[in-house]
């Protein structure tokens, strides 16, 4: 088994994939805690469907660097979703559901009308469940991912106390002069960036798992905000690395394997919390 792993890791693209997976898992797990607590668990799902739609548009236009289209569209949708969440006729959950299925349907129609390759269902399946293109990463992709991850981590650490305050009590934060709308915006934009980065990895349908599972698992057991954040990050990195190793060993799809290992940890933590209460 070790020999098989050693063989796989002798390829640079496997090592690249490993690094990228861990960075994305780390960032998404940190953001997951405030998103879950703010009842925005579904924002990941909604935005990833938007990203799928945007990717279909990018594929139709034939641009090689698709991120140029996907990233701005997703960021704008994130801002819109958080805006509508506050006080409009369409409430937060409805607006997320609306935007996400709308984008999914539009994307699928576009991919059928203007097929960029002969095998549409493989294309669609790849973008929904994560493609093996995670194993065709170039060195430049790794650098892009690293820079994004560093930005996300820096923002998160610098604004950690304010993110806590805004998440716990938006009214109090506003009253003490914290620009809570601004921080909500920052959270939305970072979420959008992570989702676009993670699309290749686990695909649109499974992205929310990376965001919500580590946070939910950590909240089962830990009782302070800081310990929940740290535990969430640790769980996510461990699940991501074990997921990718298992997928190499058993030739399972990378994204789905990571999500299933996150699910397994969640079940274990839930069981532990139930027994701890007794």
């Amino acid at each position: 088994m070790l020999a098989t792993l050693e063989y796989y890791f002798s390829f640079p693209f496997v090592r690249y994939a490993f690094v990228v997976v861990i960075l994305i898992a780390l960032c998404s797990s940190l953001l997951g805690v405030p998103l879950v607590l703010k009842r925005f668990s579904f924002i990941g799902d909604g935005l990833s469907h938007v990203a799928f739609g945007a990717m279909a548009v990018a594929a139709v236009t034939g641009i090689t660097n698709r991120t140029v289209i996907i990233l701005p569209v997703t960021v704008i949708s994130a801002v819109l979703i958080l805006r509508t969440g506050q006080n409009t006729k369409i409430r937060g959950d409805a607006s997320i559901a609306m935007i996400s299925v709308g984008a999914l349907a539009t994307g699928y129609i576009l991919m059928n009308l203007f097929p960029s390759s002969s095998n549409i269902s493989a294309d669609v399946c790849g973008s929904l469940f994560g493609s093996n293109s995670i194993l065709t990463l170039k060195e430049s992709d790794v650098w892009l991912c690293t820079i994004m991850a560093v930005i996300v981590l820096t923002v998160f650490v610098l604004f950690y106390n304010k993110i806590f305050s805004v998440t716990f009590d938006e009214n109090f934060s506003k009253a003490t002069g914290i620009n809570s709308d601004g921080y909500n915006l920052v959270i939305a934009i970072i979420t959008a960036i992570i989702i676009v980065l993670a699309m290749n990895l686990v695909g649109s349908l499974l992205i929310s798992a990376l965001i919500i599972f580590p946070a939910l698992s950590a909240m089962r057991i830990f009782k302070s905000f800081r310990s929940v954040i740290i535990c969430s990050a640790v769980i996510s990195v461990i699940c991501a690395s074990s997921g990718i190793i298992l997928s190499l060993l058993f030739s399972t799809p990378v994204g789905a394997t990571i999500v299933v290992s996150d699910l397994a940890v969640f079940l274990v933590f839930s069981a532990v919390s139930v027994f701890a209460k007794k």
Partner: protein
Amino acid sequence: MSKQIICNNLTLGYEDGVVTENLNFSVSTGDYLCILGENGSGKSTLIKALLGLKPQLSGEIKWCDGFSARDIGYLPQQTPVQRDFPASVREIVLSGCLSKKGFHPFYNSAEKKLADDKIKQLGIDSLARKCYRELSGGQQQRVLLARALCATSKMLLLDEPATALDPHAQLELYELIANLNRQRISIIMVSHDITASLKYATHILHISKKQLFFGTKSDYINSNTGRAFIEKGEI
């Protein structure tokens, strides 16, 4: 006694209509003002205006002696999000210090000491490491009071602080607030509980779309508005 807030002909509302108009009242250092009124009478709009979150349609809110909206410690109503929030008591109290920090990202030792002092002052030091969601309603209110006191030592604005508490916890909370008031912290409390308001307040502001009464408690008890509502027992 020095005035902290003076409101003159204050009219509040949204673009499509006035919520409450012609409010004339003031708060001085050490006052305990209860704001009474039915649902929809403009109490929560008035709170937003006092906190500087909502501009008035007309009239003015005058801040005296360098006092400002940022010097108000706010105790909002609890939200559903908070009931299962994983945070320690100390983390929550510390977040009250954020108002003075501006951009600076981390707490310094003076702020940590302030938070610990307030935790002691409100008698929750044995709970400091506990998780907020595991506390009783009364203990949670004490934590939020400690957080508000980290933000200010001049004035507290309490939004229905005793709702959802059992009678014993209500009494404890009211006594605690009265105790803070004795330490020259001005209190503005929005309340439905007319009995408690009459017991603890020094001044009463009664609103219902417009101002029905503002003055001292004894004047309120003898006024027509006051008598009518006291007979009904609650608002």
